[in-house]
């Protein structure tokens, strides 16, 4: 079976491993933005090939697909989806696992995602307001209080400012930061011409984040085990927001701090969103879909955002736990034949992933790129761990160089977090730079201390949302009594409807 995989990073390396571990005889071709050594190797050993070209270009994708005539195309990242790569391939008759441009609106436009949830009263929704003009947004932010300022379009997790504003004596200085952040977001997002609203201001919530990933052919939905991703760059949950410095999963379908009931509620939300999304955009959703969730005092399971693809590095965390033939699942999803398919996981095992990044990531990427690095693959494998290549490229001198983002992921699995953590720490230590440039990873991901902390935090928010549930006020928060005007509900919710941007 010939498979063309579109994408360049650690997530795609995980997908490549899932594809090539199939029972079927596979020839893997890859369209990647750069020569990722991991992807190059995975394709070479199957007798396939890596084509280095822009993955966001539908012309590139079609050209290579026509050249290799794949039986299946798997599109990993969101940007090719936004640029219509999936649609162009489908128009030419290829079977594609990946969301179409219209379906991927759920990730591309955060305003659309929020609008959809409000239109259909889907639980787990947050109050929000969206802006097209800088001045309006700035004026609003002055009075908005405790909010999150987000670019209305997905820009690789960048640009989110969580401005916690619960102390009036510090509010003035925070207004200033909010205002500057909004201006910066306008500047950043104006580079993209594919959305209408620019800035989203939404209610800030606190709690424990987790990712719920599913695979769908548009009617059947196969849920995958929950994963917790760690967005802060540094240990102790300090520092910049990144694409994810690692994650944990298991045992079973849960996480140590999520109950079975919360898991079921989460799956209901995801299912309803997928149904309404397809209704709204009048297109069939084929591929991976994920809810970036947070257990909050407001709702219990609450939606922070959606991904129209697998999370990166969330899918890596499931790599050692998946027992089913995943290529068959991809193929059947792409052909609309998922009904009756079941995905088996090792129930007892837990997974720990750690991203290893060059110092300077995520903000000083110029400094973080161009450093020669080496990974002792044999020693990592001898621990039973996998090494995934992410933002590293193979150059003509035969050496690997950092590209400025997360360079590698180590993926370890064991019967306990204690053991998986120990293995992951050892595995991460086998990656070094050749020019002395510091590499870093988070030494606390997977540790008992951090898991215990999340358990405590989940217990705190669980008390709050269960009390709201008992009083019948789940989801209600922003009810303001204005003297002389009465009770105003949801002052944040935008009165503006979402219009299709196509």
């Amino acid at each position: 079976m010939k498979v063309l995989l579109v994408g360049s990073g650690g997530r795609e390396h995980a997908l490549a491993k899932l594809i090539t571990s199939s029972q079927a005889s596979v020839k893997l071709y890859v369209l990647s933005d750069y020569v990722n050594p991991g992807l190059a190797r995975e394709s070479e050993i199957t007798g396939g090939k890596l084509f280095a070209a822009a993955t966001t270009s539908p012309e590139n994708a079609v050209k290579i697909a026509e050249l290799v005539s794949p039986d299946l195309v798997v599109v990993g990242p969101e940007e090719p989806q936004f640029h219509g790569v999936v649609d162009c391939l489908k128009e030419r008759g290829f079977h594609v696992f990946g969301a179409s441009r219209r379906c991927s609106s759920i990730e591309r436009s955060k305003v659309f995602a929020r609008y959809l949830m409000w239109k259909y009263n889907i639980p787990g929704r947050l109050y929000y307001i969206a802006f097209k003009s800088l001045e309006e947004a700035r004026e609003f932010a002055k009075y908005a209080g405790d909010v999150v300022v987000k670019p209305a379009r997905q820009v690789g997790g960048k640009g989110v400012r969580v401005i916690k504003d619960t102390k009036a004596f510090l509010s003035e200085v925070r207004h200033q930061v909010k205002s500057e952040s909004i201006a910066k977001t306008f500047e950043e997002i104006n580079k993209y011409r594919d959305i209408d609203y620019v800035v989203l201001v939404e209610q800030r919530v606190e709690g424990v984040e987790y990712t719920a990933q599913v695979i769908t052919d548009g009617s059947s939905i196969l849920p995958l085990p929950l994963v917790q991703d760690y967005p802060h760059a540094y240990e102790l949950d300090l520092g910049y927001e990144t694409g994810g410095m690692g994650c944990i999963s298991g045992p079973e379908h849960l996480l140590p701090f999520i109950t079975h009931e919360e898991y079921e509620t989460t799956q209901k939300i995801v299912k309803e969103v997928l149904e309404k999304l397809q209704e709204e955009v009048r297109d069939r959703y084929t591929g991976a879909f994920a809810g970036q969730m947070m257990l909050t005092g407001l709702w219990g399971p609450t939606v922070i955002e959606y991904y129209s693809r697998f999370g990166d590095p969330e899918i890596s965390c499931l790599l050692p736990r998946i027992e089913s033939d995943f290529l068959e699942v991809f193929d059947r999803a792409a052909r609309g034949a998922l009904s009756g398919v079941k995905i088996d996981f090792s129930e007892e095992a837990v997974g720990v992933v750690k991203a290893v990044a060059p110092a300077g990531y995520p903000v000083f990427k110029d400094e973080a790129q161009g450093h020669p690095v080496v990974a002792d693959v044999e020693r990592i494998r001898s621990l039973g761990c996998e090494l995934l290549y992410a933002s590293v490229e193979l150059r003509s001198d035969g050496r690997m160089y950092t590209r400025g983002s997360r360079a590698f992921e180590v993926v370890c699995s064991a019967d306990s977090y204690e053991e998986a953590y120990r293995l992951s720490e050892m595995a991460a230590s086998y990656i070094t730079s050749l020019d002395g440039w510091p590499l870093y990873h988070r030494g606390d991901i997977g540790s008992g201390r951090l898991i215990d902390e999340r358990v405590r935090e989940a217990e705190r928010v669980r008390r709050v949302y269960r009390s709201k549930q008992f009083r019948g006020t789940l989801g209600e928060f922003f009810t303001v009594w204005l003297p002389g005007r009465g009770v105003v509900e949801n002052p944040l919710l935008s009165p503006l409807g979402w219009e299709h941007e196509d």
Partner: protein
Amino acid sequence: MTGFFSILFFESGWDVRSFLDYGLSALKHRGGSLNLVCWRQNDRVACEKYENSEPQNLSHSGVALATRVDSRKVSEQVVSRDRLALVFDRPSKYSDEVADIVEKAFTSTKPYEDLAKHLSVFRDVDIPTFTAISPREEVVVWRSNTGLTPLAIGGYGFDMVVASTESSVIEVLDADIRKHLLPGEGLYLTRKRVKLFNSEPSSKCRLCLFELLYTARHDSIVDGVCAYEFRKKLGEKLGKYLESRVDVVIGVPETALPYAVGLSHSTGTPLEFGFVNTAREARSMLREGVRDKLIAVHLKLNPIRRVFEGKSVAIVDDSMVTGSTLKTVAQLLRYRIGVRELHVFIASPKLVDTCPYDVVALDPGTLISAYLDDSSIEKYLDVDSLHWLRDEDIDSVADFFRVRLCATCFGRDAVGESR
């Protein structure tokens, strides 16, 4: 022990001034009359001392530190150089050696490894908890290798880290507590690197009992222990020393209030609010001169007459140093108000020695319980009875909270876990 905090901003655009101002407010209760703030200014570190005004030269900076310090101890607690500002939480005779180590680490390619290595040299010496900043916008915080004084790390969203000797500073600045550092543990911070490091802790690690007993704010979390809960629990232990019924329990404001709550709960005696504070400055025990202390006591203890008149009163305090506060209270209640009986409960054992670590400034010549027996102190205070917590009470509460505490000034090496 005075307190300090340091801040690093990951994102630009933050004005550090308000954070320093409100953070220092949250340290006021620890004493020290002088505010000191340091920040990066171009290619050097600038510092400014001020009392009641505001810093005049403070400019935008990605890093800053702040402390309140006793004006007579600045030279022993603060090292200010062009390439570094370093502040200890108490006087240290090793201040220059430690500053040299940190300054050198700031120029190293692996600063956290150098710090871990070189600070381990002091394994058998008591080095106070410290923080330092550099002109390259680096921050180092390190907890004393003896663990006598605490240090907590907090995070605010994706924007800020704040490290402080008192966790309530972190909460006041709207950040969340992420870790209580262990003895000998440090954190090196820049925008590009954040790294915990460990130097060799002393073989004799314990937290100062006074921190939990008196110095920390009631809302502070010290090594994972809530100061208020610890105090209330000690107050409950006082209940067994109540010999006859009293009408009312009163705590000497404000530090003794949780102990009074505990005594009231354990004996079923009503708790009353007895005094109104006229001044809002540092605590009386931390005042520098005798006259200053007396003024502070008088200002903070304006009694609510009807609460006391004709009643049998149990008055609770956290400790007794010179006895002057309780003497003042006793005179006030007995002669000006007219209480029927006055029983004093002290929520700690007797203070009998000075602090060899300079954590608490105690003049051995003035410790009343080192010189007088109970009946003499009763006479001096002019009270009907006087009760102290005993060693076994402190041990049992320390064990309950799983902390090991230094009690040298109470005449014991350590109390609590594995003592």
